[in-house]
């Protein structure tokens, strides 16, 4: 197990290196690049001023030198200074990450809590009405533009019924509330964003756990369990489910980039001050240092998500650990 974990960890190094390389390439393919952005507002910026700016950012050096300079600072978590407000990019991102991670973790939990039981039930009752209904739900879930669903739910719950707040993560008067009220306020603000970002994942994972379960149910050891007279619930939960869940873990890991990417849309719609909203704002104002910082951090978070998924897979499935 230890050597597997070590191997998996070591693999992250070249991958992270590749991530920084692609990020750097994408940004530096820009026609004009960062200097144009800072000088395009003032037409009077002289050629001299441009040269000075180029020197400041090290843009007068050859590309590979620029890359390694950037990488050197990156390793020390120095992501540079934001073009927009002159703050350190790392600090800007750091204060946004907790909100985004909280929402994504909550939706992952929600996805598992809803999708796995749905998948198991529709597999054990294949071709039943419940199974057919969930199939319909799965296709709708795959096909619904979630930002549109967000708009519709905002109209229904926020505008018409006035039940839920439709922007931010806390009310303006939150400082005057006690702990319980504050918690309730926070939950009310998060219901729509978390529910919506889980929506697509629930459809996907319930489909996946259904087919995984269907495969397991036909295995010999399940028949053996039945043959020795176990209760049906024991057969399903203790023998079938445990084995069916293993590949599901991997799928959860793979859904991480989708969740993080989706945070751009949800945080923009619901005005949530997270990483996605920061990324959108940075893209709009062409704040290159921040864009590069978030791109790399988003990708590394995905790698970590995959790593956790692979590790838990190895923990539950001895075959993975033993293989080479």
């Amino acid at each position: 197990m230890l050597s597997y974990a070590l191997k998996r960890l070591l693999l992250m190094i070249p991958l992270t290196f590749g991530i920084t390389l692609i990020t750097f390439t994408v940004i530096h393919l820009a026609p004009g690049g960062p200097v144009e952005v800072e000088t395009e507002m003032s037409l009077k910026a002289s050629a001299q001023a441009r040269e000075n700016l180029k020197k400041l950012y090290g843009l007068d050096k050859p590309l590979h030198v620029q890359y390694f300079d950037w990488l050197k600072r990156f390793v020390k978590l120095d992501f540079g200074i934001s073009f927009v407000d002159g703050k350190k990019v790392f600090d800007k991102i750091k204060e946004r990450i907790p909100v985004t991670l909280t929402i994504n973790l909550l939706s992952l939990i929600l996805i598992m809590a809803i999708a796995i039981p749905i998948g198991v039930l529709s597999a054990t009752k294949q071709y039943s009405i419940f199974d057919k209904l969930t199939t319909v739900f799965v296709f709708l879930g795959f096909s619904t533009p979630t930002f549109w669903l967000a708009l519709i739910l905002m109209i229904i719950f926020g505008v018409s019924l006035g039940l839920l707040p439709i922007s931010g993560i806390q009310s303006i008067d939150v400082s005057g509330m006690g702990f319980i009220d504050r918690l309730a306020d926070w939950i009310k603000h998060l219901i729509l964003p978390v529910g919506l970002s889980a929506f697509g994942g629930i459809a996907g994972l319930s489909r996946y756990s259904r087919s995984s379960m269907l495969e397991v149910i036909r295995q010999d050891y399940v028949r053996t369990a039945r043959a020795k007279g176990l209760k049906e619930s024991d057969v399903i939960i203790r023998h079938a489910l445990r084995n069916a869940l293993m590949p599901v873990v991997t799928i959860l890991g793979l859904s991480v980039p989708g969740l993080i990417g989706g945070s751009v849309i949800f945080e923009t719609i619901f005005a949530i001050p997270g990483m996605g909203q920061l990324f959108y704002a940075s893209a709009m104002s062409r704040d290159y240092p921040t864009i590069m910082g978030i791109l790399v951090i988003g990708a590394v978070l995905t790698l970590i998500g995959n790593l956790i998924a692979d590790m838990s897979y190895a923990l539950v499935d001895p075959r993975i650990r033993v293989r080479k």
Partner: protein
Amino acid sequence: MFRIIWHRFKKNPLSVAGLAIILSLAAIALFAPVLSPHEPTKIDVYNVLSPPSSNHPFGTDELGRDLLSRMIWGSRASLKVGFIAVGIAISIGTMLGAIAGYYGGKIDALLMRFVDIMLAFPTFFLILAVIAIVEPSISTIMIIIGLTGWMDVSRLVRAEFLTLKERDFIAAAQALGASDPRLIFRHIIPNALSPVFVAATFGIAGAILTESGLSFLGLGVQPPEPSWGNILTSGKDNITVAWWLSLFPGIAILITVLSYNLVGEGLRDALDPRLWTSEK
């Protein structure tokens, strides 16, 4: 061959319905100038945000433009983006997957690590970063969605190549002196295409969703050119007064994407040889 596929495909009524909807949408996009009751960009200040009526069946937007006409013209955007983006993704994916699967070894390892790296980026982040640099327009997003969506296809094609290249007919062709490109393009790719078609159909559904999301954020199709996504932006801006601006374009996206997904599901079943034999 096509007859067998069609024969199997039409057993699934939902997939056939999906195909019918896709074909009608293509016809609507093609005949938009004839079908739309009003000019899609004609501003009418006396009819701003008017609810659905007999003259404007879906109502009007904040500039008094007819929503139905804008949606009919907007279907062109999603169709174009869907097909061109997926065309790009499939070309790249098939090419790289074929090279990796055929040559194997170091080339394969290198290409597959590249795929891993590309998959680590949240696609939406990558797209947004590029759009921050290049002016957003319909052609920009078609290309970007294509350039960021080829990884799954390359994995599929690679897997097909790995099994196909061990088969006897390849050894036979090799013995006859066929060159590498000839083996790849004439002998293996035609046999590796069915999972690619299925992935392409699902890919179009995904590309249409991505386009609408980007246009909704103001980063895709730019107004006044209509797209379902950018109509929803004005839906959001007028959320408290004009529900029709939010409702109809969203339903159009939902039905279109659903149709492609249903056709993809039908195709998958129709093209799966394991299901062919079990039937007889």
